[in-house]
């Protein structure tokens, strides 16, 4: 199984992305914010991260920065945001994202990005 971690505080969005990814055979885990995501990362080796920007406690940028600062194998990360601004995209890549998708993410987009990035190191 190829485990993916979805990090988003919106239950509906987590279920939406989970539905798409599980249909492709991926093993999906969830976290509701960056803090919970970091805790899960310590105990499980994920092969891809799907990270929302706006979350309470620790947002997507903060989570990726903390994750990349750890000296362990680094899976690829897709940042997902409601904003398409170039500055937000630059900020995401600077924090450690490998790709940037704008909500609502279309199923073919998500499937393609997961296929291309799964198992790739950052």
């Amino acid at each position, binding site marked *: 199984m190829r485990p993916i971690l979805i990090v988003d*505080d*919106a*239950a*509906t*969005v987590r*279920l*939406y992305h989970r*539905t*798409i990814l599980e*249909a492709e055979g991926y093993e999906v885990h969830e976290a509701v914010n960056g803090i919970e995501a970091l805790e899960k990362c310590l105990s499980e080796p994920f092969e891809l991260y799907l990270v929302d920007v*706006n979350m*309470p406690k620790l947002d997507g940028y903060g989570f990726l920065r903390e994750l990349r600062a750890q000296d362990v194998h680094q899976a690829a990360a897709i940042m997902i945001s*409601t904003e398409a601004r170039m500055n937000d995209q630059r900020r995401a890549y600077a924090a450690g994202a490998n790709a940037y998708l704008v*909500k*609502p993410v*279309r*199923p*073919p987009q998500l499937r393609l990005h997961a296929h291309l990035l799964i198992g790739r190191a950052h």
Partner: protein
Amino acid sequence: MTALLEQFLSEARDFLQGIGEKLLELEADPGNAELMTALFRMVHTLKGNSGLFDFPEMTRVLHAGEDLMDRVRNGQVQYEKALAGRDGFRWHALRRNRNQRRGWCRPRRRFATALGVPA
């Protein structure tokens, strides 16, 4: 009704209730930045969720409310009762709209097809 739609409606109900409560709290404490941030986050998330489905009116109202709150957060507009009254009316209409849609709403057609659920 699909599991995704049920999840959306359940979450939307909670968000709409929370938004109404926050608007009332803000009436009594209009300068409270934490309250405004919490309110903004709920509206923002509900807007994002509605974008997964074919609820353009709902998304438009939420987008307008979000823009207004952003201007209040940035100090461009002062929060006052008239604003709350207008927003309160909008959230009431939004809640009525959501209840009316329970019986026949569907996800966006292309998403529905891709997800293998009825469109």
